Protein backbone atom coordinates (compact mmCIF):
# COMPACT_ATOMS: atom_id res chain seq x y z
CA UNK A 1 0.00 0.00 0.00
CA UNK A 2 1.24 3.38 -0.88
CA UNK A 3 -0.26 6.33 0.86
CA UNK A 4 -3.38 7.86 -0.54
CA UNK A 5 -3.28 11.21 -2.22
CA UNK A 6 -5.82 13.97 -2.52
CA UNK A 7 -7.33 13.92 -6.01
CA UNK A 8 -9.49 16.66 -7.47
CA UNK A 9 -11.48 15.93 -10.60
CA UNK A 10 -14.18 17.89 -12.36
CA UNK A 11 -16.60 15.23 -13.55
CA UNK A 12 -19.53 16.30 -15.71
CA UNK A 13 -19.13 19.84 -14.42
CA UNK A 14 -19.04 18.93 -10.74
CA UNK A 15 -15.89 19.21 -8.64
CA UNK A 16 -15.07 15.97 -6.86
CA UNK A 17 -12.46 15.62 -4.14
CA UNK A 18 -11.38 12.24 -2.94
CA UNK A 19 -8.51 10.25 -1.52
CA UNK A 20 -7.10 7.54 -3.74
CA UNK A 21 -3.94 5.54 -4.15
CA UNK A 22 -1.94 6.76 -7.13
CA UNK A 23 -2.17 3.30 -8.72
CA UNK A 24 -5.94 3.28 -8.84
CA UNK A 25 -7.21 3.44 -12.39
CA UNK A 26 -9.45 6.30 -13.43
CA UNK A 27 -12.22 3.89 -14.46
CA UNK A 28 -12.41 2.51 -10.90
CA UNK A 29 -12.29 5.95 -9.33
CA UNK A 30 -15.28 6.91 -11.47
CA UNK A 31 -17.25 3.72 -10.95
CA UNK A 32 -16.44 2.71 -7.39
CA UNK A 33 -15.62 5.93 -5.59
CA UNK A 34 -17.89 8.36 -7.42
CA UNK A 35 -20.61 5.87 -8.38
CA UNK A 36 -20.49 7.05 -11.99
CA UNK A 37 -21.12 3.70 -13.65
CA UNK A 38 -21.78 4.76 -17.25
CA UNK A 39 -18.22 4.05 -18.41
CA UNK A 40 -17.79 0.26 -18.36
CA UNK A 41 -14.92 -2.09 -17.70
CA UNK A 42 -14.70 -4.28 -20.80
CA UNK A 43 -11.28 -5.67 -21.57
CA UNK A 44 -9.34 -3.55 -19.07
CA UNK A 45 -6.40 -3.66 -21.49
CA UNK A 46 -7.03 -0.48 -23.55
CA UNK A 47 -8.42 -2.38 -26.52
CA UNK A 48 -12.21 -2.29 -26.29
CA UNK A 49 -13.04 1.35 -25.52
CA UNK A 50 -16.01 0.59 -23.22
CA UNK A 51 -14.33 2.78 -20.56
CA UNK A 52 -13.91 5.78 -22.90
CA UNK A 53 -14.31 9.19 -21.27
CA UNK A 54 -13.35 12.66 -22.40
CA UNK A 55 -10.45 14.00 -20.33
CA UNK A 56 -9.34 17.60 -20.92
CA UNK A 57 -10.78 17.47 -24.43
CA UNK A 58 -9.26 14.11 -25.38
CA UNK A 59 -11.01 10.78 -25.83
CA UNK A 60 -9.19 8.42 -23.50
CA UNK A 61 -9.53 4.88 -22.23
CA UNK A 62 -9.93 5.37 -18.51
CA UNK A 63 -8.61 1.86 -17.76
CA UNK A 64 -5.17 3.07 -18.87
CA UNK A 65 -4.99 6.29 -16.87
CA UNK A 66 -3.89 6.35 -13.24
CA UNK A 67 -5.99 8.33 -10.79
CA UNK A 68 -2.89 10.36 -10.00
CA UNK A 69 -2.37 11.19 -13.68
CA UNK A 70 -5.94 12.44 -13.95
CA UNK A 71 -5.59 14.68 -10.88
CA UNK A 72 -6.79 18.17 -11.85
CA UNK A 73 -8.49 17.02 -15.06
CA UNK A 74 -11.90 17.82 -16.43
CA UNK A 75 -13.78 14.66 -17.31
CA UNK A 76 -16.99 14.01 -19.19
CA UNK A 77 -18.70 10.62 -19.06
CA UNK A 78 -21.87 9.42 -20.75
CA UNK A 79 -23.79 10.80 -17.72
CA UNK A 80 -22.65 14.28 -18.74
CA UNK A 81 -23.77 13.86 -22.34
CA UNK A 82 -27.47 13.10 -21.96
CA UNK A 83 -30.05 11.85 -19.49
CA UNK A 84 -33.05 9.51 -19.78
CA UNK A 85 -35.38 12.53 -19.95
CA UNK A 86 -33.24 14.42 -22.40
CA UNK A 87 -31.31 12.15 -24.71
CA UNK A 88 -28.40 13.54 -26.69
CA UNK A 89 -28.87 13.51 -30.46
CA UNK A 90 -26.36 10.65 -30.65
CA UNK A 91 -28.21 8.61 -28.05
CA UNK A 92 -31.45 9.11 -29.92
CA UNK A 93 -29.79 8.17 -33.21
CA UNK A 94 -28.42 4.95 -31.66
CA UNK A 95 -31.97 4.11 -30.56
CA UNK A 96 -33.55 4.98 -33.89
CA UNK A 97 -30.99 3.10 -35.99
CA UNK A 98 -30.52 0.06 -33.73
CA UNK A 99 -26.95 1.11 -32.96
CA UNK A 100 -26.95 -1.15 -29.91
CA UNK A 101 -28.03 -4.62 -28.95
CA UNK A 102 -26.74 -5.54 -25.50
CA UNK A 103 -25.68 -1.96 -24.84
CA UNK A 104 -22.45 -2.73 -23.02
CA UNK A 105 -20.21 -0.84 -25.43
CA UNK A 106 -22.70 1.98 -26.01
CA UNK A 107 -21.56 4.50 -23.36
CA UNK A 108 -18.02 4.31 -24.71
CA UNK A 109 -19.25 4.44 -28.30
CA UNK A 110 -21.36 7.54 -27.71
CA UNK A 111 -18.74 9.31 -25.58
CA UNK A 112 -16.17 8.74 -28.34
CA UNK A 113 -18.66 9.74 -31.06
CA UNK A 114 -19.45 13.08 -29.36
CA UNK A 115 -15.77 13.99 -29.52
CA UNK A 116 -15.46 12.70 -33.09
CA UNK A 117 -18.36 14.89 -34.24
CA UNK A 118 -17.00 17.85 -32.32
CA UNK A 119 -13.71 17.56 -34.25
CA UNK A 120 -15.32 16.62 -37.56
CA UNK A 121 -19.00 17.65 -37.81
CA UNK A 122 -19.43 16.30 -41.35
CA UNK A 123 -17.66 12.94 -41.42
CA UNK A 124 -17.75 10.45 -44.27
CA UNK A 125 -18.55 6.83 -43.53
CA UNK A 126 -14.82 6.12 -43.68
CA UNK A 127 -14.10 8.93 -41.20
CA UNK A 128 -16.60 7.41 -38.78
CA UNK A 129 -15.18 3.90 -39.13
CA UNK A 130 -11.63 5.18 -38.65
CA UNK A 131 -12.56 7.56 -35.84
CA UNK A 132 -14.47 4.85 -33.94
CA UNK A 133 -11.75 2.23 -34.40
CA UNK A 134 -10.85 2.29 -30.72
CA UNK A 135 -14.29 1.02 -29.70
CA UNK A 136 -15.29 -2.62 -30.08
CA UNK A 137 -18.82 -4.03 -30.25
CA UNK A 138 -19.46 -7.77 -30.11
CA UNK A 139 -23.13 -7.64 -31.15
CA UNK A 140 -23.99 -5.33 -34.00
CA UNK A 141 -21.26 -5.84 -36.56
CA UNK A 142 -20.84 -2.05 -36.58
CA UNK A 143 -23.14 -1.31 -39.54
CA UNK A 144 -25.83 0.26 -37.40
CA UNK A 145 -23.35 2.04 -35.16
CA UNK A 146 -21.85 3.75 -38.19
CA UNK A 147 -25.34 4.52 -39.47
CA UNK A 148 -26.30 6.02 -36.10
CA UNK A 149 -23.23 8.28 -35.93
CA UNK A 150 -23.76 9.47 -39.51
CA UNK A 151 -27.44 10.17 -38.81
CA UNK A 152 -26.56 12.15 -35.69
CA UNK A 153 -23.96 14.11 -37.65
CA UNK A 154 -26.57 15.07 -40.25
CA UNK A 155 -29.04 16.07 -37.57
CA UNK A 156 -26.51 18.09 -35.57
CA UNK A 157 -25.31 19.91 -38.69
CA UNK A 158 -28.88 20.72 -39.74
CA UNK A 159 -29.66 22.04 -36.26
CA UNK A 160 -26.51 24.14 -36.32
CA UNK A 161 -27.39 25.58 -39.74
CA UNK A 162 -30.93 26.37 -38.60
CA UNK A 163 -29.53 28.18 -35.57
CA UNK A 164 -27.24 30.35 -37.69
Amino acid at each position, binding site marked *: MSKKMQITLTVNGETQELLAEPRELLIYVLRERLNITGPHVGCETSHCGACTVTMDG*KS*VKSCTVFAAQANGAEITTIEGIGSPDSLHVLQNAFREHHGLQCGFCTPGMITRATKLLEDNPNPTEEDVRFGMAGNLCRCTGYQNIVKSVLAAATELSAAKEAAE
Partner: protein
Amino acid sequence: MIPAAFEYYRPESLQDALSLLQTHGDDARVMAGGHSLIPMMKLRMAEVPHLIDLQAIADLRGIRVDGDTVSIGAMVTQHEVIESTDLLRAAPILREAALQIADPQVRYMGTIGGNVANGDPGNDMPGIMQCLGAEFSLIGPDGTRTVAARNFFEAAYMTARTDEEILTRITFPAHAGGFAYEKQKRKIGDYATAAAAVLLTKEGGTCATASIAMTNLSDVPVWSEAAAAALDGTACDSGAIAKAMAAMDGDIDPGEDNRGPVAFKRHVAGITLSRAITRAWSRA
Protein backbone atom coordinates in the same frame (compact mmCIF):
# COMPACT_ATOMS: atom_id res chain seq x y z
CA MET B 1 -5.67 -5.77 -12.84
CA ILE B 2 -4.08 -3.75 -10.10
CA PRO B 3 -0.48 -2.65 -10.42
CA ALA B 4 1.93 -2.74 -7.51
CA ALA B 5 1.83 0.36 -5.33
CA PHE B 6 4.01 3.30 -6.22
CA GLU B 7 4.79 6.85 -5.24
CA TYR B 8 3.68 9.34 -7.84
CA TYR B 9 5.49 12.52 -8.82
CA ARG B 10 4.54 15.22 -11.32
CA PRO B 11 7.56 17.52 -11.58
CA GLU B 12 7.18 20.79 -13.47
CA SER B 13 10.78 21.11 -14.61
CA LEU B 14 13.37 18.82 -16.17
CA GLN B 15 15.76 19.58 -13.32
CA ASP B 16 13.20 18.35 -10.78
CA ALA B 17 12.56 15.22 -12.84
CA LEU B 18 16.30 14.53 -13.09
CA SER B 19 16.84 14.95 -9.36
CA LEU B 20 13.97 12.51 -8.67
CA LEU B 21 15.62 10.01 -11.01
CA GLN B 22 18.93 10.44 -9.18
CA THR B 23 17.36 10.14 -5.74
CA HIS B 24 15.47 6.94 -6.49
CA GLY B 25 17.86 5.31 -8.94
CA ASP B 26 16.68 1.97 -10.31
CA ASP B 27 13.39 2.26 -8.42
CA ALA B 28 12.30 5.25 -10.51
CA ARG B 29 11.04 5.52 -14.04
CA VAL B 30 9.68 8.36 -16.13
CA MET B 31 6.33 8.02 -17.85
CA ALA B 32 5.07 9.91 -20.90
CA GLY B 33 1.58 8.93 -22.11
CA GLY B 34 1.77 5.67 -20.20
CA HIS B 35 0.19 3.53 -22.89
CA SER B 36 3.09 1.09 -22.97
CA LEU B 37 4.13 1.35 -19.33
CA ILE B 38 0.72 1.23 -17.62
CA PRO B 39 -0.33 -2.04 -19.30
CA MET B 40 3.00 -3.58 -18.24
CA MET B 41 2.49 -2.30 -14.68
CA LYS B 42 -1.04 -3.71 -14.62
CA LEU B 43 0.32 -7.11 -15.63
CA ARG B 44 3.02 -6.65 -12.98
CA MET B 45 5.63 -7.23 -15.63
CA ALA B 46 6.96 -3.80 -14.71
CA GLU B 47 7.28 -2.61 -11.16
CA VAL B 48 8.00 1.07 -10.67
CA PRO B 49 8.14 2.08 -6.99
CA HIS B 50 8.65 5.74 -7.95
CA LEU B 51 6.71 6.86 -11.01
CA ILE B 52 7.67 10.23 -12.51
CA ASP B 53 4.91 11.60 -14.74
CA LEU B 54 6.31 14.04 -17.32
CA GLN B 55 2.96 15.62 -18.27
CA ALA B 56 3.57 18.96 -16.52
CA ILE B 57 6.98 19.74 -18.02
CA ALA B 58 6.43 22.49 -20.59
CA ASP B 59 9.94 22.10 -22.07
CA LEU B 60 8.95 18.67 -23.40
CA ARG B 61 6.07 20.00 -25.49
CA GLY B 62 5.72 21.76 -28.79
CA ILE B 63 6.48 21.25 -32.46
CA ARG B 64 8.88 23.77 -33.99
CA VAL B 65 9.76 24.13 -37.66
CA ASP B 66 12.58 26.62 -38.05
CA GLY B 67 13.64 26.89 -41.68
CA ASP B 68 14.74 23.39 -42.61
CA THR B 69 14.97 22.09 -39.07
CA VAL B 70 12.10 20.28 -37.39
CA SER B 71 12.09 19.83 -33.63
CA ILE B 72 9.44 17.84 -31.77
CA GLY B 73 9.14 17.75 -27.98
CA ALA B 74 9.18 14.27 -26.49
CA MET B 75 5.72 14.73 -24.94
CA VAL B 76 4.03 15.65 -28.23
CA THR B 77 1.24 13.12 -28.74
CA GLN B 78 0.52 11.13 -31.88
CA HIS B 79 -2.72 13.10 -32.10
CA GLU B 80 -0.78 16.37 -32.11
CA VAL B 81 1.52 14.99 -34.82
CA ILE B 82 -1.53 14.20 -36.96
CA GLU B 83 -3.08 17.63 -36.41
CA SER B 84 0.07 19.68 -37.05
CA THR B 85 -0.04 21.59 -40.34
CA ASP B 86 3.63 22.54 -39.84
CA LEU B 87 4.61 18.87 -39.74
CA LEU B 88 2.41 18.09 -42.71
CA ARG B 89 4.54 20.50 -44.74
CA ALA B 90 7.92 19.64 -43.24
CA ALA B 91 7.66 15.85 -42.84
CA PRO B 92 4.36 14.43 -44.11
CA ILE B 93 5.58 10.87 -43.50
CA LEU B 94 4.96 11.44 -39.78
CA ARG B 95 1.24 12.03 -40.24
CA GLU B 96 0.92 9.04 -42.55
CA ALA B 97 2.65 6.88 -39.93
CA ALA B 98 0.91 8.27 -36.85
CA LEU B 99 -2.49 7.55 -38.41
CA GLN B 100 -1.48 3.89 -38.53
CA ILE B 101 -0.58 3.71 -34.83
CA ALA B 102 -3.08 2.18 -32.41
CA ASP B 103 -6.51 3.88 -32.33
CA PRO B 104 -7.82 7.42 -31.70
CA GLN B 105 -7.98 7.15 -27.91
CA VAL B 106 -4.47 5.76 -27.66
CA ARG B 107 -3.14 8.44 -30.04
CA TYR B 108 -4.48 11.16 -27.73
CA MET B 109 -2.23 9.84 -24.95
CA GLY B 110 0.67 8.11 -26.71
CA THR B 111 3.67 10.35 -27.33
CA ILE B 112 6.37 10.47 -29.95
CA GLY B 113 9.05 10.45 -27.24
CA GLY B 114 7.61 7.41 -25.52
CA ASN B 115 7.30 5.65 -28.85
CA VAL B 116 11.02 5.99 -29.58
CA ALA B 117 12.49 5.85 -26.06
CA ASN B 118 10.71 2.64 -25.06
CA GLY B 119 12.75 0.72 -27.61
CA ASP B 120 9.91 -1.65 -28.46
CA PRO B 121 10.76 -3.22 -31.85
CA GLY B 122 7.05 -3.05 -32.70
CA ASN B 123 6.89 0.73 -32.41
CA ASP B 124 6.67 2.66 -35.66
CA MET B 125 8.48 5.93 -34.92
CA PRO B 126 11.98 4.46 -34.36
CA GLY B 127 12.29 3.31 -37.98
CA ILE B 128 10.80 6.54 -39.27
CA MET B 129 13.28 8.57 -37.23
CA GLN B 130 16.13 6.50 -38.67
CA CYS B 131 14.71 7.07 -42.13
CA LEU B 132 14.59 10.85 -41.49
CA GLY B 133 18.11 10.90 -40.01
CA ALA B 134 16.78 12.29 -36.72
CA GLU B 135 18.81 13.11 -33.65
CA PHE B 136 17.56 12.52 -30.12
CA SER B 137 18.38 15.06 -27.39
CA LEU B 138 18.97 13.53 -23.98
CA ILE B 139 19.38 15.36 -20.71
CA GLY B 140 21.05 13.78 -17.69
CA PRO B 141 22.98 14.68 -14.56
CA ASP B 142 26.03 15.55 -16.68
CA GLY B 143 24.16 17.81 -19.08
CA THR B 144 22.74 17.27 -22.52
CA ARG B 145 23.90 15.19 -25.45
CA THR B 146 22.49 14.08 -28.77
CA VAL B 147 22.43 10.60 -30.21
CA ALA B 148 21.59 9.81 -33.83
CA ALA B 149 18.45 7.69 -34.23
CA ARG B 150 20.58 5.37 -36.37
CA ASN B 151 22.83 4.68 -33.34
CA PHE B 152 20.20 4.80 -30.60
CA PHE B 153 18.63 1.33 -30.66
CA GLU B 154 20.79 -1.47 -29.23
CA ALA B 155 18.40 -4.38 -28.69
CA ALA B 156 14.72 -4.88 -27.83
CA TYR B 157 13.91 -2.32 -25.09
CA MET B 158 17.60 -1.39 -24.86
CA THR B 159 18.69 2.02 -26.13
CA ALA B 160 21.60 4.42 -25.80
CA ARG B 161 19.61 6.36 -23.19
CA THR B 162 20.89 5.62 -19.69
CA ASP B 163 18.53 5.23 -16.73
CA GLU B 164 19.41 8.69 -15.40
CA GLU B 165 18.59 10.40 -18.70
CA ILE B 166 15.38 11.78 -20.18
CA LEU B 167 14.69 12.10 -23.90
CA THR B 168 13.70 15.73 -24.42
CA ARG B 169 13.43 16.45 -28.15
CA ILE B 170 13.70 14.89 -31.57
CA THR B 171 15.29 16.98 -34.33
CA PHE B 172 15.60 16.25 -38.03
CA PRO B 173 15.87 18.06 -41.35
CA ALA B 174 12.63 18.84 -43.16
CA HIS B 175 12.04 16.53 -46.10
CA ALA B 176 10.78 17.66 -49.49
CA GLY B 177 10.17 14.79 -51.87
CA GLY B 178 8.37 11.50 -52.06
CA PHE B 179 7.45 9.69 -48.86
CA ALA B 180 5.49 6.67 -47.71
CA TYR B 181 4.94 4.58 -44.60
CA GLU B 182 3.40 1.25 -45.51
CA LYS B 183 2.35 -0.96 -42.63
CA GLN B 184 0.88 -4.44 -42.71
CA LYS B 185 -0.98 -5.36 -39.53
CA ARG B 186 -3.54 -7.94 -38.54
CA LYS B 187 -6.09 -5.40 -37.39
CA ILE B 188 -6.39 -1.75 -36.39
CA GLY B 189 -4.35 -1.11 -33.28
CA ASP B 190 -1.92 -3.96 -33.85
CA TYR B 191 1.82 -3.65 -34.18
CA ALA B 192 3.27 -4.19 -37.64
CA THR B 193 3.77 -7.64 -39.08
CA ALA B 194 6.11 -5.62 -41.27
CA ALA B 195 6.32 -1.95 -42.17
CA ALA B 196 8.46 0.12 -44.49
CA ALA B 197 9.40 3.81 -44.35
CA VAL B 198 10.63 5.32 -47.61
CA LEU B 199 11.83 8.85 -48.36
CA LEU B 200 13.21 9.75 -51.77
CA THR B 201 13.88 12.67 -54.08
CA LYS B 202 13.68 12.78 -57.85
CA GLU B 203 15.92 14.73 -60.24
CA GLY B 204 15.56 14.57 -64.02
CA GLY B 205 13.38 11.47 -63.89
CA THR B 206 15.63 9.41 -61.68
CA CYS B 207 16.00 8.86 -57.96
CA ALA B 208 18.57 11.27 -56.51
CA THR B 209 18.44 10.31 -52.85
CA ALA B 210 16.67 7.56 -50.95
CA SER B 211 16.36 6.44 -47.34
CA ILE B 212 14.67 3.21 -46.27
CA ALA B 213 13.89 1.80 -42.82
CA MET B 214 11.93 -1.28 -41.78
CA THR B 215 9.83 -1.83 -38.62
CA ASN B 216 9.41 -4.96 -36.46
CA LEU B 217 11.65 -7.14 -38.57
CA SER B 218 14.52 -7.37 -36.08
CA ASP B 219 15.21 -6.53 -32.42
CA VAL B 220 15.79 -2.97 -33.58
CA PRO B 221 14.56 -0.88 -36.50
CA VAL B 222 16.52 -1.60 -39.66
CA TRP B 223 17.84 1.34 -41.67
CA SER B 224 18.86 -0.35 -44.90
CA GLU B 225 21.54 1.59 -46.77
CA ALA B 226 21.82 -1.23 -49.29
CA ALA B 227 18.11 -1.05 -50.16
CA ALA B 228 18.31 2.72 -50.62
CA ALA B 229 21.46 2.37 -52.77
CA ALA B 230 19.56 0.01 -55.08
CA LEU B 231 17.25 2.89 -56.01
CA ASP B 232 19.95 5.51 -56.64
CA GLY B 233 19.94 6.76 -60.21
CA THR B 234 17.04 4.49 -61.23
CA ALA B 235 13.49 5.39 -62.22
CA CYS B 236 12.23 3.19 -59.37
CA ASP B 237 10.99 0.73 -61.98
CA SER B 238 10.15 -2.87 -61.14
CA GLY B 239 13.75 -4.01 -61.63
CA ALA B 240 15.08 -1.42 -59.20
CA ILE B 241 12.36 -2.23 -56.68
CA ALA B 242 13.22 -5.94 -56.88
CA LYS B 243 16.87 -5.11 -56.16
CA ALA B 244 15.89 -2.92 -53.21
CA MET B 245 13.68 -5.73 -51.86
CA ALA B 246 16.54 -8.24 -52.14
CA ALA B 247 18.97 -5.85 -50.45
CA MET B 248 16.50 -5.15 -47.63
CA ASP B 249 15.93 -8.89 -47.19
CA GLY B 250 19.64 -9.25 -46.42
CA ASP B 251 19.46 -6.64 -43.66
CA ILE B 252 16.39 -7.78 -41.70
CA ASP B 253 16.32 -10.57 -39.14
CA PRO B 254 12.69 -11.33 -38.27
CA GLY B 255 11.72 -13.88 -35.65
CA GLU B 256 8.74 -16.20 -35.62
CA ASP B 257 5.88 -15.17 -33.37
CA ASN B 258 2.08 -14.95 -33.42
CA ARG B 259 2.29 -12.62 -36.43
CA GLY B 260 3.71 -15.44 -38.49
CA PRO B 261 6.73 -17.56 -39.39
CA VAL B 262 9.97 -16.05 -40.66
CA ALA B 263 9.33 -16.82 -44.34
CA PHE B 264 5.95 -15.07 -44.17
CA LYS B 265 7.45 -12.01 -42.51
CA ARG B 266 10.16 -11.79 -45.16
CA HIS B 267 7.46 -12.01 -47.82
CA VAL B 268 5.35 -9.28 -46.16
CA ALA B 269 8.44 -7.11 -45.67
CA GLY B 270 9.12 -7.27 -49.42
CA ILE B 271 5.53 -6.39 -50.30
CA THR B 272 5.37 -3.44 -47.88
CA LEU B 273 8.69 -2.10 -49.19
CA SER B 274 7.60 -2.45 -52.80
CA ARG B 275 4.33 -0.61 -52.10
CA ALA B 276 6.10 2.09 -50.10
CA ILE B 277 8.65 2.74 -52.87
CA THR B 278 5.92 2.89 -55.51
CA ARG B 279 3.85 5.34 -53.44
CA ALA B 280 6.84 7.50 -52.48
CA TRP B 281 7.98 7.65 -56.12
CA SER B 282 4.49 8.71 -57.25
CA ARG B 283 4.71 11.62 -54.80
CA ALA B 284 8.31 12.64 -55.61
